[in-house]
């Protein structure tokens, strides 16, 4: 069961990478880079550490479980193939807006226009940090 879970987590990382390529195609480079570094990197690390901290060393049942669960996660490779077809095949209709994403424009929006979202992000990161520290503390 554990190897299946690990494969799911790695599959999630690969899905994030494919999504990054799709976002590059849609002319959203900053979001694509963020998604690659955070989702494909950080979240995969969080998942793999969670899985390794919650595994049971139980060899006898692994073979039976493998037969039971066969085919439950067959969709991930198929999704990859579909995504690749989209990347290479479909012609994106050219919208008449000359779409050159200005990196400084995105930076301007995040840091200068939407201050309230910044406060929210700081608050939620503090909440998550304090929460995880509290949850992991053992008496």
């Amino acid at each position, binding site marked *: 069961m554990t190897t299946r879970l690990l494969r799911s987590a790695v599959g999630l990382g690969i899905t994030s990478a494919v999504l990054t390529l799709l976002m590059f195609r849609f002319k959203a480079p900053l979001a694509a880079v963020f998604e690659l570094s955070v989702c494909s990197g950080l979240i995969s690390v969080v998942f793999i550490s969670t899985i390794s901290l919650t595994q049971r060393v139980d060899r006898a049942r692994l073979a039976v479980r493998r037969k039971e669960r066969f085919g439950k996660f067959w969709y991930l490779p198929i999704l990859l193939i579909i995504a690749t077809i989209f990347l290479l095949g479909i012609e994106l209709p050219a919208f008449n807006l000359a779409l050159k994403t200005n990196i400084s424009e995105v930076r301007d929006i995040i840091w*200068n*226009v*939407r*201050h*309230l*979202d910044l*406060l*929210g*992000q*700081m*608050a*939620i990161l*503090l*909440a*998550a940090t*304090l*929460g995880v520290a*509290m*949850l992991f503390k053992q008496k």
Partner: protein
Amino acid sequence: MAGWLVLIPFIILVLMNSPVRRIIKHAYFGLLLVFLSWQLGFTIFGSQRSLNLGNNSLAPWLKFQLNIDSLSVIVLAVISLAGLVSLILAQVLIKENRPRQHFLNLFTIAILGMNAVTMLEDVFSLYVFLEVTAVSSFVLIALQKNRDCLEASFKYLVMSSVATLLLLSGVALFILTCSGTSFAAISEGMAFAGTSPWIKVALGLFTCGLLIKSGMIPFHAWVPDAYAAASDPVSVLLAGAVTKVAGLYAILRLVIFVWGFSPVIEQTLLFVGALSVVGGALLALAQKDFKRMLAYSSISQLGYVLLGLGSGTMVGVAGAIFHFFNHTVFKSLLFVNAASFKQHTGSDDMEKLKGVSSVMPCSSITSLAGFFSGAGIPPFAGFWSKLLVILGLWEASRQGYAVIAILAGLLTMGYFLNLERKIFLGGESVEFKKHKVNNTIVWLEVTLALLTLLCGLFYPYLLEHFMLPAAASMLP
């Protein structure tokens, strides 16, 4: 002014977690108490002067798009009231220093999130601060780390995340059709092209997300577990503030100010409201655990708010907002009673409460006050708010729903009578622990009971100054 309500909790949080805290070690509780009292005082006394100040900015370089208007004032009062009760209860019940520090940290973040939800003007910022409130609630529920609360917290996490994702797809479709996420842009877009299928799908997804977050039937699966498994101060905060501000206030704000009252919206709200009122009451009748019964009762009472909103008339909406406020008062009172009963009998089971009125007279009498207000018995405040909702439904010629509301009132009386019968007439069947009644809890209960009585006696004043101005903004 609006910016301070959001910045001060943040400053308190940072201050109390930095090395400065060794100097002002026991000031956390005092600082939060002062801040919440200031917020309550501002909403009651200062609101008449400083509404709609235009550009609520603290400094030229700090652009918070926050706005306080008549509806926000009532909800800020609700948040500060529930926060004060929860804070005082935590000060009494959580005795060790470490758990209290954890609780106060996350409590501050929850208050920050809810204050910001009340005052903002942008749909994406609504998502951000709903998540802030939700994450702090997940950790608050899981604070005691026993079996029940971790399971309840995880269930809440999964359902809240699904609700958030539905909300976000609604936001994405709003960007597509209305080219912007602020409330002004969306209402303009809806006035311009209100019948295109994109907007209908966006509205539907958004409403589903918000209904899951507010715990209406059929999306109520997380509510009883979360309220019952959490510790008592957290239950007070959840029932009195988080569920209402995160879910119901967002629906109120969006329907009144942004979307307007179209027949489809009204029909949906009425249907979900009626389902919640009847379903919550029926499920509450079958419960054996005090806090689970209170959770189902909350679902039922919040259904009244949706019914009042769906009626579409000013009387109904004013009744809905008044019931929003009243529910905080009497539900917090009942949860404080649950906490004091638990200290005496050791568990939440209602069977163990038989005859407890001889040992704890104060808690029993104040639970009567909560019961009268909740079931809608004059002259307590709950009667007037429910009456206004039913009048609003009658005026909008939805007599069927009005009859359902009246019948559900009878069901409410049913399950509350069950509780009171056990408390008063049960006879001494269980050995009670000899426990000295805590004075702070007694004062808290008496204050809340008096508050709900006073709100009922002086309801014309409240209606004229607070509720009707809020409901009047629905007129174009």
